[in-house]
């Protein structure tokens, strides 16, 4: 018998288990479920940014044959009284937006009515001719103009960390030999996943609902329905099996959920509701942020003082926060640090976490400033970072659970050929193009949450593992399958992973790059629990070679349970199941982060990005010709899906750097380029060579799997590195992103 371990899947690169379903069109998305006897909804959005709805002339469209109802604040039934009932797991402080609650308009594109009809086309038409009278009030939406009105926010949002201060930054800076102080701005961005937000609500004859909703957290949505509509868990099942991208847009229950459930309950009918691409710009956004960074260095290039301030908007009703500046107190060694963070309430919808919220923004300010500082001090930008390497997390005064950023720098520089770089701007050319090399990096939380999972194995050796996690395209199904298969020594084909359904054990929303750590740990734990049961059954078999063995003495490999010390002593798992006579054996388990380790260690993932750009100076065009992104994020469970995450991050970074921005016309308080033709994200032609590499870290403290998560860290530094490369190419420092043609002319 071979002792070869071909059921060791963790760390390998298996393809997505749901891939075939997706490419053959069998994977069903929320607005695609076929339910009998559907009616269709269409949302009417406010054209004004602030004011009141005076009158909704619904009668005219209700007279159209096939139009069933127009829901608005005028006829919405009494729902939850307290606005805290509308709070979800991810809600910031303040009072959540309540759709159709009253006549008040709080932001442009606010949903003001839902038209329900027998066909989608009719609902859309009726919505287009629905006459609504508004009373307009003066609005304010321009954060750049109103940034002096910023205030330090409260700590209403889970995970928010108030800005850190230590030592005396002004004093540190005053001792510096070289100093810089600059302002960095980037515009608003919208998540814009390919799949439009939508829901199909199946109204069952017994009044129960199955809600297929586009969400990154089915339990979060179920809780919301419970609190808002008083629906007990058995009355509202929420399902999301696949997502065509989320990026954070699906962290909070969006208004298609509220509206479709409202209509289903009121009409006692099944309903489908899909937003439009334009309405996708009303679901929250990465805020327009103004940052100021001040740095100073001593004779050896050591940072003596660091100040970083960020201001962005929030809505009038919620205090959205993200951690923008605190990374600056952590990424580099610096004794005197002063960080500030403020938000300005404006007449816009509440911003919403968007891939690497806060850090994606902060890393632009800090990492462009670091490049400026390196040039001011005359030190190579990478060498400058090495000299200021932080061996400890100074924000929390703790050691890192693991940190291989030095190795990341080395590996990145080697792969990119950084040593061939000439420091001086405008010193490298190819043909008639200027060539620039830039680098930057970042740091991101390695988080884990509480989660539960279930496992069951049938007599034929088929294992099912389930946990109500989300899968927004990142590879959760695959990672669950790999871990379960490896833990119980089964081929991946024998394992089915289930997720995204409130009939499954509870898991948190999919965000914060914690899903692999959280759900992966839960799956591992539940499979181990199941393994213990299987071991006991194996020990009951006649002549079992495992008699007396403890769980830690055995391993599950290649369909066998065998002694670790004497691998030849084994039993075939299938035989155990058969002999046991049981049809199905189950186990449940739940995991949570280890509070002791969390107290002792700072847990973070890091990366560094090296970029080459070519610039046609006359025409202002920039091509990102080469990117090397090296990531240290603990253990990598699936090389393929992890690499895909980082590739996607690089593409997004190119987008942030060069083209992505939702532009508001402040006279109307309205986003004007709210469609895919004018909201630009990269196309294939914009993306050239990308190399992704992982420096693996052995981290026994972070979680039982040793993983830190790679969904977000790869984005950090990409936009900054491109900005720095453009400076190196042209000698022009652009401090306002996106770096469009006009800014280089």
């Amino acid at each position, binding site marked *: 018998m071979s002792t070869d371990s071909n059921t060791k899947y963790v760390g390998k690169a298996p393809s997505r288990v749901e891939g075939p379903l997706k490419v053959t069109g069998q994977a069903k998305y929320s607005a695609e479920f076929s339910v009998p006897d559907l009616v269709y909804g269409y949302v009417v959005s406010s*054209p*004004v940014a602030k004011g009141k709805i005076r009158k909704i002339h619904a009668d005219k469209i209700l007279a159209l044959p096939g139009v069933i109802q127009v829901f608005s604040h005028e006829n919405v039934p009494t729902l939850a009284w307290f606005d805290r009932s509308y709070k979800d797991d991810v809600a910031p402080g303040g009072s959540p937006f309540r759709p159709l609650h009253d006549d008040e308009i709080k932001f*442009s594109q606010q949903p003001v009515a839902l038209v329900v009809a027998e066909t989608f*086309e009719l609902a*859309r*038409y009726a919505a*287009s*001719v629905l006459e609504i009278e508004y009373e307009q009030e003066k609005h304010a939406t321009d954060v750049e103009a109103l940034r002096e009105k910023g205030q330090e926010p409260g700590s209403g949002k889970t995970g928010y960390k108030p800005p850190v201060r230590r030592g005396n930054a002004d004093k540190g800076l005053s001792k510096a030999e070289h100093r810089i102080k600059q302002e960095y701005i980037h515009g608003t961005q919208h998540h814009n996943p390919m799949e439009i937000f939508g829901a199909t609500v199946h109204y069952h004859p017994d009044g129960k609902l199955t809600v297929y909703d586009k969400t990154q957290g089915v339990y979060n949505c179920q809780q919301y329905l419970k609190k808002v509509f008083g629906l007990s868990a058995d009355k509202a099942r929420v399902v999301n099996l696949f997502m065509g991208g989320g990026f954070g847009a699906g962290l909070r229950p969006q208004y298609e959920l509220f509206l479709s459930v409202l209509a289903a309950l009121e009409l006692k009918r099944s309903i489908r509701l899909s937003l*439009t691409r*334009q309405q996708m710009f009303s679901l929250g956004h990465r805020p327009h942020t103004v940052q100021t960074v001040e740095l100073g260095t001593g004779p050896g290039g050591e940072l003596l003082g660091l100040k970083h301030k960020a201001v962005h908007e929030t809505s009038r009703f919620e205090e959205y926060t993200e951690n923008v500046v605190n990374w600056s107190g952590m990424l580099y060694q610096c004794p005197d640090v002063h960080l500030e963070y403020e938000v300005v309430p404006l007449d816009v919808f509440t911003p919403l976490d968007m891939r690497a919220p806060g850090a994606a923004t902060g890393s632009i300010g800090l990492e462009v400033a670091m490049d400026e500082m390196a040039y001011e001090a005359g030190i190579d930008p990478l060498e400058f970072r090495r000299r200021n390497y932080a061996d400890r997390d100074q924000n929390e005064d703790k050691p890192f659970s693991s940190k291989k950023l030095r190795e990341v720098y080395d590996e990145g520089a080697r792969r990119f050929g950084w040593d061939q770089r000439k420091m001086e701007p405008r010193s490298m050319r190819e043909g008639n193009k200027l060539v620039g090399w830039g680098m930057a990096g970042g740091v991101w939380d390695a988080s884990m949450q509480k989660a539960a999972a279930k496992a069951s194995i049938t007599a034929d050796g088929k294992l099912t593992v389930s946990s109500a996690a989300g899968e927004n395209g990142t590879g959760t199904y695959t990672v669950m399958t790999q871990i379960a298969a490896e833990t119980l020594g089964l081929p991946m084909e024998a394992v089915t992973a289930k997720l995204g359904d409130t009939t499954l054990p509870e898991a948190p929303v999919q965000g914060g790059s914690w899903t692999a750590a959280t759900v992966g740990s839960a799956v591992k734990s539940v499979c181990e629990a199941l393994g213990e049961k299987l071991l006991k059954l194996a020990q009951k078999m006649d002549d079992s070679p495992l008699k007396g063995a403890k769980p830690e003495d055995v391993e599950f490999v290649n369909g066998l349970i065998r002694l670790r010390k004497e691998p030849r002593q084994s039993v075939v798992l299938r035989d155990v199941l058969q002999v046991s006579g049981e049809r199905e054996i189950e186990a449940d388990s739940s995991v949570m982060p280890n509070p002791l380790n969390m107290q002792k260690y700072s847990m973070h993932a890091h990366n560094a990005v090296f970029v080459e750009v070519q610039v*046609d100076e*006359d*025409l*202002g*065009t920039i*091509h990102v010709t080469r990117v090397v992104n090296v990531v240290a994020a603990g253990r990598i469970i699936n090389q393929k899906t992890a690499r895909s995450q980082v590739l996607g991050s690089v593409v997004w970074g190119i987008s942030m750097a*060069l*083209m992505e921005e939702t*532009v508001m*016309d402040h*006279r*109307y308080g*309205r986003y*004007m*380029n*709210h*469609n895919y*033709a*004018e909201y*630009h994200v*990269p*196309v*294939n*032609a*914009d993306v050239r060579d990308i190399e992704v590499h992982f420096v693996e870290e052995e981290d026994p403290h972070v979680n039982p799997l040793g993983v830190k998560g790679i969904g977000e860290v790869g984005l950090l530094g990409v936009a900054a590195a491109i900005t720095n490369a453009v400076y190196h190419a042209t000698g022009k420092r652009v401090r306002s992103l996106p770096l*469009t*043609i*006009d800014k280089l*002319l």
Partner: protein
Amino acid sequence: MNPFTLTRAASVDAAVRDFSGHEAAAYIGGGTNLLDLMKENVAHPQHLVGLNKLPLSSIESTTGGGLRLGATATNADTAWHAEVQQRYPLLSQAILAGASPQLRNMATNAGNLMQRTRCYYFYDTATPCNKREPGSGCAAIGGYNRIHAILGTSDSCIATHPSDMCVALAALEAVVQVQGPDGSRQIKFEDFHRLPEDAPERDNTLQAGELITSIDLPAQGFAENFAYLKLRDRQSYAFALVSVAVGLELDGNTIKEARLALGGVAHKPWRDKAAEHLLKGQPATEATFRKAAEAVLKEAKGQGTNDFKIELAKRAIVRALTQAAAGEQKASDVFTNSNP
């Protein structure tokens, strides 16, 4: 989008008749622009006359040695047509610089001429727009006008015509053949699109019910020395901020004949005959090109967020003329991206 009826006309006469017989009728080609406008409540036709059954999809030689592009031939079929590629590579390049393969497979030649502006405000019924709703005002003036015009604007509209294909057609002096309720006529390309003046709701000089049947190219195709240069916010699938179509005929280093048209800068493809005149008889040097570029932009007026286009257009003109003079773009490499 309002309910509508749809018929598919079998002949040009039938199409024109069908159009005249209905209230608020519209022709529909590939639908890549019209359907979007209907979904966004900008266009409200009650009746659509489908054109894809008409015998207008061929591309054939004309007696004068030119080429006739059928009105319903797709942009893709036109750009990849052997004759177009060899004799009018400027047109091929321009078409392929536009939209995406999927859109070009649907879009028709007539539809391309007739496509409406991409002005953000025109598309958003929450804002005023004279083109959409005459007399309501122009929100782009004083607003976000990054993609708007710098030449030939008026106080009522600063929109651009977004087509790439039309910029090449303007440079090539194409002729538009139309048939309407009162018979057929031909329209010189320079007279086809119009400036906004005080009637921005009218993009062109086509009369109600007139159907484009073909676009005719004259014999001269500038296949040796041409360039189509498109500058945009990403490297494909974005409308032009500025584009330049150039055709030159050289005698040694002397310019014998010149065509120069710009896209993304005006309510119509902007051909500048005076600038062409400045080029003729001159040596093909940077100094000559600069002079022409300055002349084209002499009257240009920025609107705020599009101020950069004035300088960008000048540089683009110089670059495109340089490329054309050097014969850098080749009839055989229409496949390569026309980006710098």
